[in-house]
C-alpha cells in the first residue's frame, strides 16, 4: 500500500523530470549538438494521474526529489548497445531507488535510428534495453522489477534524417510503471 503510493509519487515526480528533460537532452547526444528542430519532442506525453497521496515523509521525499533530477533517456553510439558514459551516474541513481523500493517496477523501451532494416533494428533496440536492464541488475535491482521492450526504429523521438536526429533516436527510455 505504502509502496504503491511511492510508485505513484515517483511517477508524478518523474513527469516533472520529463518536462524538465528537454533542456538537457541536447547535451546527451554523442555529437554534443544542442537543440535540433525536434528536441522538444523529448518531453513525455503520458499524462500521469495526479495523486496527492504523498504524506511529507522526509526519506521518501528525498528519494523522490533525487529521482526527479535524474534523466530518463539514455543514448547510444551507432551500432552499439553500451550506454554512453555520461548516463551511467543517473542510471545508478535509478538503480538505488529501485533496489530500495522492490515493489516499484520499471519499463525500458529500446529504440534505434532509421538505418538498417526494421526487424533487425527491433533486435538492436532489444539489445539496448537489455544492456540497461543488466546495468540495473548489477546495481541491485531485481530482474522481476524490469521489463525491456524494443520499438526498433518505429517510434523515433525526432523525425530528421541527419546525424543529430539519428543520435537522438538511438536511445532507451526509462519509465516507472503505475
Amino acid at each position: 500500500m505504502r509502496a504503491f503510493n511511492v510508485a505513484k509519487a515517483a511517477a508524478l515526480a518523474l513527469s516533472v523530470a520529463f518536462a524538465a528533460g528537454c533542456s538537457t537532452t541536447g547535451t546527451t547526444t554523442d555529437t554534443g549538438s544542442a537543440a535540433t528542430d525536434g528536441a522538444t519532442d523529448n518531453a513525455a506525453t503520458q499524462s500521469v494521474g495526479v495523486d496527492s497521496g504523498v504524506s511529507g515523509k522526509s526519506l521518501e521525499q528525498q528519494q523522490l526529489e533525487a529521482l526527479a533530477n535524474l534523466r530518463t533517456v539514455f543514448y547510444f553510439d551507432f551500432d552499439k548497445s553500451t550506454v554512453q558514459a555520461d548516463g551511467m551516474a543517473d542510471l545508478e541513481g535509478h538503480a538505488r531507488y529501485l533496489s530500495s523500493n522492490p515493489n516499484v517496477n520499471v519499463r525500458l523501451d529500446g529504440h534505434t535510428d532509421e538505418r538498417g532494416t526494421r526487424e533487425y533494428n527491433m533486435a538492436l533496440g532489444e539489445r539496448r534495453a537489455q544492456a540497461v536492464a543488466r546495468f540495473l541488475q548489477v546495481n541491485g535491482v531485481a530482474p522481476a522489477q524490469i521489463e525491456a521492450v524494443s520499438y526498433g526504429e518505429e517510434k523515433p523521438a525526432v523525425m530528421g534524417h541527419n546525424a543529430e536526429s539519428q543520435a537522438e533516436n538511438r536511445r532507451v527510455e526509462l519509465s516507472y510503471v503505475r
Partner: protein
Amino acid sequence: MVRIFKLWLAVMAACLITTLSAHAELTIEITQGVDQPTPVAIVPFKWEGGYALSEDVAKVVNDDLSRTGLFKMVKRENMLSFPSSQAQMYFRDWRVSATDYVLIGRIKPGKGDQVVVEFELYDILKEQRLLAEQVSAGSANLRDISHYIADMVYEKLTGLRGAFSTRIVYVTAKQLGNKRYRYKLQLADSDGARPRTILESREPIMSPAWSKDGKKLAYVSFETSRPSIYVQDLATGQRQRVQSFKGLNGAPSWSPDGQKLAIVLSKDGNPEVYVLDLQRRQLTRVTHHYGIDTEPSWSPDGQSLIFTSDRGGQPQIYRVHLASREITRLTFEGRYNARGRLTQDGRFLAMVHQSGGTFHIAVQDLRKDRVEILTETSLDESPTIAPNGSIILYATQEGTRGVLGGVSLDGRVKFRLPASEGDVREPAWSPYLQ
C-alpha cells in the same frame, strides 16, 4: 468464351472495412524505362450504354503497361482514329505512326448493373489478331476488368504472366503531434489505386506478410504496448493474436503450404527463428545462436528458410535447411546484407545491401553468385517481389518522407509511388489472386 470475373475484393470491401478515413493515395511516376520500348496503342473503349461509366478502362490498361517501362504508349491525341471493332482496323494507318500493337475494345450494358467488355489485340506488322475475349462483371468493378485486360496483353507481348490484378499492402505513419503517431495498414491495387485501411492504431504496425493463397495477412502490432503477431482474415476482417511472448514477437513469414509461420521470438533471451504450426499450435525452434537471428523468409519449395544473422560479426543472409538444420551463408559482398526475399523460381535473392554509408536494394543471382545494386537512393529497405518476378517494390526516402519505389529485377526500369500524405513503408506484394 464469357469469363465470369471473380471479384473477391468486392465482397471484401463490403465486410471488412472498419475505417475509411483519409487515405494515402499512391500515384505513379516512371523515372526510368528501357532503351527500346515497344510502341503500343490502347484505343479508348467504345461505351454503348446510356449512363456514365466510373472508370476509363483503356486508361487503366494504358497506365498498367506504361508502368512496366517496357512499352512506349501511343498518346490518344496522336491516334488517327479510335477503332472499336475489327472492321474499323486500318493497319496502314497504325503502321505509318510506327505502332507495333493496338488494343481496341467495346463495353456494353449487361443484365442489371453488369457490363460486358470485349477486347481485341492486334499485331500491326503481321496484320494479325492476337487476342479476342469477352469479360463481364459489375460496373463497379471496371478497374478489376482493366487490370485483367492488362494482364492478358502483357502476357501476350512478353510471354510472362501479368501481375496487375494483384494487390499490395503497406504501412503508413503520420506524426500527429508530440510523440503521437497514427499507423495504418493499407491494402491497395498493385498500382496503388483504391487504398483501404485494414487496421489503424496509435502504436506501431510492422512487417505485413501475405499468406500464399492471398486470403490472410500476418503482421506485428504494438497495440498492447508490446509487439505481438496477429493474423487477419481479409474477407471477414477477423483477427487473431497468434504469438505474444515476452520480448520480440516479429517478422512473420508464411510457409508456401499456408500451414505455418516462420517468426522471430526472443523469449529465451535473444532473437531466434521459430516455426509456428498454426493448426497444431506447435512451436519449433530453428536457430540456436547467441547473435541476432531474424527476418526469416521461406524458400518457394518450403524446404528451407533464409534469414538474417550477425553470427559472423555483421548482418548477413543465411539459409537453413529445415530437415537437416544445415546452415549455409549466402551473402559475402559488403558488410551489411539483410531482409532477403527469394523469387518464385528460387534463383534470385533481393535484399537490403549497405555500400558506402547508404542502404540500397540489391539482387544476388544465386546460380552465379553475382550481386547487382539496383537503386541509387539511400535508406532503401523492405524489398518485396511481384509474383511474376518482374518488379521489386521497396521503401525509400524522398526528401524527408517515406515513399515506395519500384525497380525491375534487371534494374532497367524504375518508378515511384509517392503518397499524398504521411510516411509510406513496408510494402508487401500479394501472390496471384483468385
